[in-house]
Every structure is written in C-alpha cells, then in structure tokens.
C-alpha cells in the first residue's frame, strides 16, 4: 500500500535578513505515502510552515528537491505550477482565507473556476460537498455571516471540491475552540479517507497529531524524529512518547534564528 506520493530530498530554504542567513528549512528529507495523514509537528518558528509552503510550491526552494507524484515542484514554471495545483493540490488555512465578497458556494466553486469547469457542473459539485461538510443551509452566506467553525468547513469544502490527491492544511484549527477543533479534524480525516487522499498538516498542537499516521517532529528547520502511529490501538490510550515535554521550553530555544557562517 505504501507508494510515496511526496518525496522531500534534502530540502533547504534560506532567508537573507540583511547579512544574516536564516536557515528556515535545513536539509530535510522524508516521504509521504499515498493516502497517508502526515503531520508536521513543531513549535512556532521551527520551520514547519515554511516546509509546507515549499511542498506546495508557494515558496521557492533554496536547495534540494521536492517531488510530488514524481514531478519536481521546484522546477515548474509559474503556469505549470498553477495547473499542477488545480489538478493535485488542495489547501486549508488557519485563517480560512475565504474571499469575503463571495458566498460560501462561490468560495467553494473557486478552484473549479480556475480549472475551467462549467458553471452547472461546478455548482452541483460545490453544493454536494457543502452538504457533506454540513453547511447545506449556509451556502448563500458570506464568510462574515458564519462562525469560525463554519468558515473552516467552507475552507475544507473548497480544498476537497476538486478531489485533489493531496490536501495541505496549515494549522487548520488554530483559530478554533477545542470543541470545534475536534469537529473540524474529524471532518478532514473523514473527507480524506473517503477518497483515499493524502493529508499534510502543520500544527504545533501535540494532541492534533494523534489524527496522523506519521508525525514528523521539526525543530530548528531540521527533522528531530519521525514517528509512525499505529491506529490499531485506541487513540485515547495512544499517548506518544516524549509528549510530556512542555511546549514553552522548546519555543524559547527555537525562536532564536539559527545562523551559520558557513555556506
């Protein structure tokens, strides 16, 4: 069952801040298998979000290579990348990133609009998926008229509407309360399982990583450890090792950017 859909090979991202070079992602290598729920876990400033953006082609690699479905993301032209995103990638954001002037339905339709899907078909698909996320009676509402949880459901519907192979989620529950967080996470998991889709999620919340099949611990732009979660156990009892480390301690260590003189 395990064929790698994402291969990250020695990926590097270096920001220049004046004379300093900040190694946000520093030689990371791992693979994500098809249908896997992969979680990039790390404190803020650890470089996990940057890594996600690199994988999605939103940011350019400074070095190394990222292959998605065997194609190198770094080598794609702007247009090719747009096309590739239309076909293969979906996104869920922390701040939902819905377009305020559009209704829920129109927001969900948007990826299909770029994909040149015809209006009637588009509407049908968007309505169907909005129903799946439980917003049947909210389709004509604008984002401002909805709660955070509802907005994120729209975001999820938008990410899944074109049935992409991979959905990237950047702190999808960061702005939600704990009850809604569980609902949203269950929803993502459910949607992904239905079509055997791959999820790559970034979070700093140790609890959320329980949903994942694979947890990649990121610290200072490097992989600290990779953890494979066995879901045959009951998720409640699965308190992964090393969990007891308080969140605050690594934060203070990692917020100082790692700088090195050498190339």
């Amino acid at each position: 069952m395990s064929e790698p859909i994402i291969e990250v090979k020695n990926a590097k991202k270096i920001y220049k801040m004046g004379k300093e070079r900040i190694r946000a992602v520093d030689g990371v290598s791992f693979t994500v298998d098809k249908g896997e729920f992969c979680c990039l876990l790390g404190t803020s400033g650890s470089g996990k979000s940057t890594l996600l953006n690199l994988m999605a082609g939103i940011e350019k690699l400074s070095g190394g290579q990222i292959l998605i479905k065997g194609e190198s993301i770094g080598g794609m032209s702007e247009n090719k990348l747009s096309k590739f995103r239309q076909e293969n990638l979906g996104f869920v954001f922390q701040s939902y990133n819905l377009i305020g002037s559009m209704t829920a339905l129109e927001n969900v339709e948007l990826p299909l609009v770029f994909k040149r899907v015809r209006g009637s078909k588009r509407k049908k698909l968007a309505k169907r998926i909005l129903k799946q996320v439980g917003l049947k009676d909210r389709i004509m509402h604008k984002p401002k008229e909805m709660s955070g949880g509802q907005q994120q459901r729209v975001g999820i519907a938008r990410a899944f509407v074109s049935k992409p192979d991979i959905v990237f989620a950047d702190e999808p529950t960061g702005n939600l309360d704990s009850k809604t967080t569980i609902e949203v996470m269950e929803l993502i998991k459910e949607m992904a399982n239905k079509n055997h889709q791959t999820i790559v999620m970034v979070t700093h919340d140790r609890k959320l990583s329980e949903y994942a099949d694979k947890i990649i611990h990121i610290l200072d732009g490097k992989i600290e450890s990779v953890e494979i979660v066995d879901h045959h156990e009951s998720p409640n009892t699965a308190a992964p090792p090393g969990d007891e480390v308080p969140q605050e301690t690594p934060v203070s260590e990692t917020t100082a950017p790692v700088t090195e003189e050498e190339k």
Partner: protein
Amino acid sequence: MRIFDLIRMGLRNLLRRKARTLLTVIGVIIGTVSIVVMISVGIGMNESFEASVMQNGGMTIVQVSADSWSEDENGEWKQTLQNLDDKVLDRLRQIEHVKAITPVINNWNMQLFSGKYSTWTQFMIMDMDCYEGFGYPALEDGTYPNKENSADAIYIGPQAIQGQFQYYDGRRPKTKDVDIRTDQLSIKIQDYQFQVNPRKKEFEQKLNNRYMIQASESGYSQADYSCFIDIDTYKEWYKKFANTLKISDRKKALASLEKYETIMLNVDNMNNVSEVQEEIEKLGFKSMSDMQYIEPMKETAEMMELVLGAIGAVAMLVSAINIANTMIMSIYERTKEIGIMKVLGCKVGDVRKLFLFEAGIIGLIGGIVGIGLSYLVSWILNTYGGQIFQSLMSGSMGVAEGSSFSVIPFWLPFFAAFFGMMVGVLSGFFPALRATKISAIEAMKSE
C-alpha cells in the same frame, strides 16, 4: 479560467466598489466628452470655413492671366504681362493633374435682344467641352451641350439674366419678362474700340432658342451670374462681326482673337493645386488660385483643430491617471484575494487578464457614455452656441450659413470608444503587472 467567468468576476469586482468605479468612469466620460467635442468643434470650424470658401468659387481652379499682378519679396505689387495664345494653352495642357483647361474671354460688349428689348450680361467664352470639367452647376434639364450637336448653345447661369429685358423708349424704360425657351433671342456685339462700317448691315446673330440652356443654382457665384458661349462659336461670330467693321479695324479685331485674356485650369484635386502652380511657374508663367490665399487660413484652421484636440487629450490623460490610481488601490485592497486565487491554482495570466479587463471596462463604459454625452453637447453647441462662435471666428474667417459648429464624423465615436478602452487597458497594464508579481505567501499573510 473561462472567459465568461473572467468577465463575471471582473464586473463583480467593479460593482463591489460602486462609488469608486462610478467616479473613475465619470473621469473617463469627462475625458471622452472633452476630446470628442474638441475634435468635433475643430472639424466643424474647418468644414464651415471650407464651405464659406466654396461659396466664393471653385477651390481647384487656377488662372493664368495675360495681365497678372503679383507681390514680390519686398511686398511690392508688380505687373507681369504674359502672352497667352494657343501654343501656351497646349503647353499648359501637358501638366499633370490638370483635369480641364480652357482659354477664357470675358466679354462685356455683347447684348441679348428680344425684339427691341435688350439686356447686358457678362459672357464667358470658353471651351464648351470644359463646362463639366469645371464643375459648373447642374442643368435644369438635359445634358451639357457639346460641340458635335449644339456648338451654338448658350449656357445661361440662373442669375445671369433673370428674364429682365429692358427697352428705353426715350422717356422711361419698359421691361419685359423673357422666357428663354419660347422667345426668339438674338445677340449683338458692340465693341466700341472698333469703328463699324456704316455701309454694312449691323451684326446680329439669331439664337436658336432650342439651345438656350438654363442652369440650376449652384452656389458658385461666377457660374451663376454669367452666360457661357463656346469659344469656337464665338470666334465664328466675331469674324462675322469683324466683317462689318471698317477695313482698318478689321485686322485688329481679328488679331485680338488670337490672344487670350485668361487661361483657366481645373486641377483634379485641391491638394495638387500648389503643385500645378509650381509647374506653371517653371514654364515661366504667373498663375493665381484661391488656394493660394486659403492655404495659410487652412493651416490656421488645422492648427486650431490640433490645439483643441490637445486640450481634450489632457483631460483624457488625467482620466487615464485616474484609472491607474483606481486599479492600484484595488490591488492593494485585494492583495490577499489575489494570493488566495494564486494558491488555489489561478494562473498568473488570468490574474493579469482580470485586472486588464476591469480597467478596460472602465475605459469602455466611460467611452461609450462619453460619446452619448458628446452628441448631446454637440447638439447644444450647434443649437445655442451660435453667437459665441460667431464672435470667436468672425475675426479671421467667415461662417457659412447653415453650417455646424460641431461636427462629429462617423469615425469619431468608434475612435473614442476604442480610445477609451485603450486608455483603460494601458493605464491598467502596470497595476495588472504588479498584481501578478504579488507573492502568494505574502499576500495571504496580509489582512
């Protein structure tokens, strides 16, 4: 993106900021109206000027006179006597762009008689085959006469005789209305520089009134007020008249037929008049044309048109800056949206197209509404602007009756709509380019 979706999204974005869009469109409307009205006024001035010139005579006519006055470099008037005969005529005929050429004799010494009633009128004697070539007025009926069928036809300008013949019986003049189609007319030559032989019968040429041809009004004054006789017919008659003179004067009279007062040329096109005049100059003859005097005035009028257009263009430029400003503002506002669109797979080209479309639509709508308003403004000018323009233009040039002050030619609305759209697209170009360069990640972070 499908084109339909692009249009829908663009229109929706414009409607989202109604006030701003409206203000920008109003800017374009003002720009369009000013440029269209300014150009139309320029064209109107030019046309009314040309019309007023046309009233005074054909613009394409060049005259070479035996007795020619011209101004030299020092501004002094100088008389040049030129010998014009058939040889000169042939040489002038060779010049390119000459459509028609004829010698012209102006004869004031001929009288038309109807019984004892008579009238003096100006006779222009020229080559009959050239009437049409000189654009003389259309005939009331029939076609222009020609040498084969009616060499002795007389062509009468509508204002030349007006049917008023007089007879002075010693106490008071009596008048008689003559209908040239029915009354028998004859012609007499009375050239007092020659002495008549009293023993000979007085020259009187009976006219075949079948060939009295009345022309309709042309607005071209010279043709309207003259009668025309073919030069060969005239020469024949003049020879008969010469026979009635004393022997000593007979030769002189016949010799006078060899020399022409004027040779008149008609040039195929107004723009070739000066070229033809240069050619005539090369042959060693002085020539005159109305164009000579009109040229500088025409230049002034064209200059005026240009200046007016430039004033309009300034308004258009301002509205272009306005569009660019609106689009830049719009991009700042929508930075995040653009970022989201890009991440969701919107092509860079589509982002650019979207912004160009929005800018173009502002320009196009402004252009179209502007054209509509221009017609209104133009109508108001033509209806109520009379006095203003009269006082504006009276200095340098006359205003022809019934002419318009503002003329919108058929191409101007199309030009203006296209121009408005181009202004929109061009001023939207750099903002659109900027939109495509927005980094998705930065854009999404912005709020």
